[in-house]
């Protein structure tokens, strides 16, 4: 078999896109599908462009009360007492609750599929009764006839605090003198290590080691070690968190909410309220963005408790400042990374020390950070230590490829420094060091077939890379990134309708077009049009357990479930045709063009047999249930052209290209959209996004005015090159797309800024004051 280097590639427009939407094609290898790879109108699209789609806050119920959550003004304090009596007396108030109205929780670990949660910590995060650990930490809630009455009443709740000093920086928080946030936290050495015995803010220490690190560095011709910092950033979804709950007299709780995973909400609500999961029904509304931030519960259990106390349905909405103050941003970090290379530019060793903010309670994405830091390259010797450290900020949560963006800043800028020092082209260096099938990561896992090398090849062949960048103060940078993607539990049920269409129900909430990509996979198998499938996202009583829409798993795993459901339909229809023709079902084949063929040239179309279900045994329902474990990791490489204003330090993005291996693009428009959207978030993280805290631990920029996500006037067109190295674990080769594109931008931008100015930025965000400071320092 020819080595990858001998294969012939070209970059060309991806059919149906704009000129900026391209793909890498290998000569002689083009996928051949009817539906996969086309761009149908998404099924939920009309509702969403006409305002008819119902999002979390859009639910209306008779007798609905509105609630308001009272939040801590302090970053760190012990709650001495809470007196709600005055609030309860306000006319129009129907219920007031505190943590005391929830069942008490103990320190047990709950497994949410993609991670674990300590139920006591979650209970305290939802409504604190012991300590408040960040400004905005919820302490009480009111339900009333209107949100205005609820707010006025909540202001009458008297909370006595014993204010404690806050700690906001990871390096300070792990020091011996730091105030300890949670006296139950001990350092847990993982994987498979021992647990410490003294109270600390350092909740976890991950340690990975491979080969002989010292020998690896000794063999290096060049060793570069650098320190990096990043600030806390938020996912910034446009829809604030919202939850509506009704606790029926029969003990059944119904929760209407916007979430990435209705079954995860069900599990958390059931556990926190100490009711069986069968008593909780979660109705997922349309979700206005999540990016990892809408998995944990905040308002849902509180709304349920208020409903129980009032006997009425209760709606709780966060406002934007609540979202910034008190949901789950992704951590700020401190990182020290060292890489050695030999004279030929091959990496000989890597070492990393990574400190991530957990926020108020343990649980930062430090472990994936550890596993991603050297994931793009063949690193023969490596040592990685990562620490999960509590600080007085909101409990952090996943944000798109959690942990990977941080570490890519470190690794990818050091790689760029190595290229500069050794006079190697950054593309050549990456082609030489890129991981391939069979390479082993520092954590010991060996790669199946992956497309890192192909993304670099696509960069090399791209118009962007081949077009010279001219002009003063301009520079071009590239950077790569990795994410594991995920499989997990998904269920699809698909009913064949008499008119030859299929109604598909699924448990995956649709954040970015997954109804379409799941329906398309079913349509491809059945040989029908995507438009002939009607996908619907249903509640937790109506379908089997389906994991979150996150981790780039939905198109892969729910897609697999849809494929299985389609195959189930095929098998059942073959039986029905056999009955019609009086032959054995083994003699019937479900062939191309949605046609069933039998002996002696008998044929019947899908449409025709769909009309004959009643007389052949009744309706046909295809069933697909998976716990997928053959997901394929994915790589992306981005090219950024920037211009830096030498007098202000302001960085403008001139041109930007996202190259990514997605396995197979089911709906290229939404694949491109994920690549573009992830890149835009990464550019925001790179340039301006950060939580600004005062020394007192108060967040100063809890608004979209001063938490500066990019506007459309800040960004150029974002070009895309889809690379399709199929995942052998999926019939169409789907890997997943959503996570990876946020990973490379900060490093790509930092490298571009260096090429424009000669200044290396090692601290995010690379905001004008910081860039200008470096420019002025380097001049003199």
């Amino acid at each position: 078999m020819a080595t990858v280097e001998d294969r012939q590639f070209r970059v060309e427009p991806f059919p149906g896109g704009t000129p900026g939407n391209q793909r890498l094609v290998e000569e002689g290898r083009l996928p051949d599908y009817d539906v996969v790879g086309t761009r149908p109108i998404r099924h939920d699209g009309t509702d969403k462009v006409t305002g008819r789609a119902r999002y979390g806050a859009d639910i209306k119920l008779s007798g609905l009360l509105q609630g308001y959550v009272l939040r801590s003004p302090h970053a760190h304090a012990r709650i001495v007492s809470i007196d709600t009596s005055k609030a309860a007396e306000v006319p129009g108030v129907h219920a007031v609750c505190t943590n005391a109205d929830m069942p008490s929780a103990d320190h047990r670990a709950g497994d949410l599929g993609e991670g674990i949660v300590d139920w006591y910590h979650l209970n305290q995060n939802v409504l604190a009764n012991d300590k408040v650990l960040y400004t905005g930490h919820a302490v009480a809630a009111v339900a009333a006839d209107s949100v205005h009455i609820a707010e006025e009443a909540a202001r009458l709740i008297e909370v006595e605090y014993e204010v404690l000093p806050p700690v906001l920086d990871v390096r300070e928080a792990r020091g011996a003198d730091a105030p300890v946030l949670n006296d139950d936290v001990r350092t847990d050495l993982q994987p498979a290590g021992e647990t410490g015995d003294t109270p600390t803010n350092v909740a976890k220490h991950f340690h990975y080691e491979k080969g002989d690190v010292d020998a690896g560095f000794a063999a290096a011709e060049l060793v570069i070690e650098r320190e990096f910092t990043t600030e806390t950033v938020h996912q910034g979804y446009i829809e604030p968190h919202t939850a509506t709950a009704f606790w029926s007299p029969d003990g059944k709780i119904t929760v209407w909410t916007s979430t990435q995973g209705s079954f995860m909400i069900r599990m958390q609500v059931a556990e926190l309220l100490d009711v069986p999961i069968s008593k909780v029904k979660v109705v997922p509304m349309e979700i206005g963005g999540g990016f990892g931030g809408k998995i944990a519960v905040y308002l849902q259990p509180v709304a349920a408790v208020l409903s129980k106390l009032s006997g009425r349905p209760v709606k709780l909405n966060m406002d934007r400042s609540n979202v910034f103050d008190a949901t789950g941003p992704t951590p700020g970090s401190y990182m020290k990374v060292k890489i050695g290379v030999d004279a030929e530019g091959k990496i000989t060793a890597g070492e990393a020390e990574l400190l991530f903010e957990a926020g108020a309670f343990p649980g930062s994405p430090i472990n994936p950070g550890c596993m991603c830091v050297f994931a793009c390259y063949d690193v023969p010797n490596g040592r990685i230590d990562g620490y999960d450290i509590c600080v007085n900020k909101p409990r952090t949560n996943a944000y798109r490829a959690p942990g990977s963006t941080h570490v890519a800043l470190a690794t990818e800028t050091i790689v760029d420094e190595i290229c500069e020092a050794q006079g190697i082209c950054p593309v050549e260096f990456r082609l030489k060091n890129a991981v391939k099938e069979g390479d082993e990561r520092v954590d010991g896992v060996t790669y199946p077939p992956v497309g890192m090398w192909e993304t670099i090849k696509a960069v090399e062949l791209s118009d962007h890379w081949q077009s010279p960048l001219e002009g003063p103060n301009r520079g071009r940078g590239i950077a790569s990134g990795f994410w594991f993607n995920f499989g997990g539990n998904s269920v699809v049920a698909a009913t064949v309708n008499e008119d030859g269409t299929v109604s598909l129900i699924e448990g995956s909430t649709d954040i970015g077009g997954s109804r379409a990509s799941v329906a398309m996979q079913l349509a491809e198998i059945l040989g029908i049009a995507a438009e002939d499938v009607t996908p619907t996202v249903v509640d937790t009583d109506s379908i089997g357990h389906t994991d979150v829409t996150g981790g780039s798993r939905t198109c892969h795993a729910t897609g697999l479930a849809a494929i299985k459901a389609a195959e189930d339909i095929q098998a059942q229809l073959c039986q029905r045709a056999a009955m019609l023709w009086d032959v054995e079902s083994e003699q019937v084949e479900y062939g191309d063009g949605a046609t069933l063929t039998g002996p002696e040239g008998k044929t019947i179309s899908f449409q025709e047999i769909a009309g004959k279900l009643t007389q052949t045994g009744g309706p046909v329902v295809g069933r697909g249930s998976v716990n997928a474990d053959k997901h394929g990791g994915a790589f992306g490489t981005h090219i950024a052209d920037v211009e830096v204003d030498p007098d202000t330090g302001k960085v403008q993005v001139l041109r930007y290209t996202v190259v990514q291996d997605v396995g197979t693009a089911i709906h290229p428009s939404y694949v491109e959209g994920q690549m573009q959207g992830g890149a835009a978030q990464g550019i925001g993280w790179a340039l301006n996004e950060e939580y600004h805290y005062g020394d007192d631990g108060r967040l100063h920029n809890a608004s979209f005015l001063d938490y500066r996500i990019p506007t459309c006037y800040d960004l150029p067109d974002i070009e895309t090159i889809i690379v399709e190295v199929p995942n052998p674990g999926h019939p169409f080769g789907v890997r997943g797309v959503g996570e990876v594109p946020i990973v490379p931008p900060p490093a790509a931008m930092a490298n571009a800024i260096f090429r424009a100015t000669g200044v290396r930025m090692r601290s995010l965000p690379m905001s004008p004051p910081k860039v200008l400071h470096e420019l002025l320092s380097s001049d003199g």
Partner: protein
Amino acid sequence: MPRVHIPAPARDLTGGEVELELEATSVRRLIGALDERFPGFADRVLEDGELKPGLRVAVDGHVSAMGLLAQLEPGSQVHFLLAIGGG
């Protein structure tokens, strides 16, 4: 025989051994065999007879949905990993 990768924090138990071949047909049996050879290993990965919360087993590079029940082939590669949450 299946090969098991010993996580770095557990190499204190294995005397620095990184990779071992052990006779076992399932992950549960593999852990039993490891514990027999390196007493204390099971305590590092199990709690109440189940994998510790959040701990996962990867077989041949794929986190197995079956956990302790995952079947092993003679050439299987086994890793202990932590669950990874995506965005």
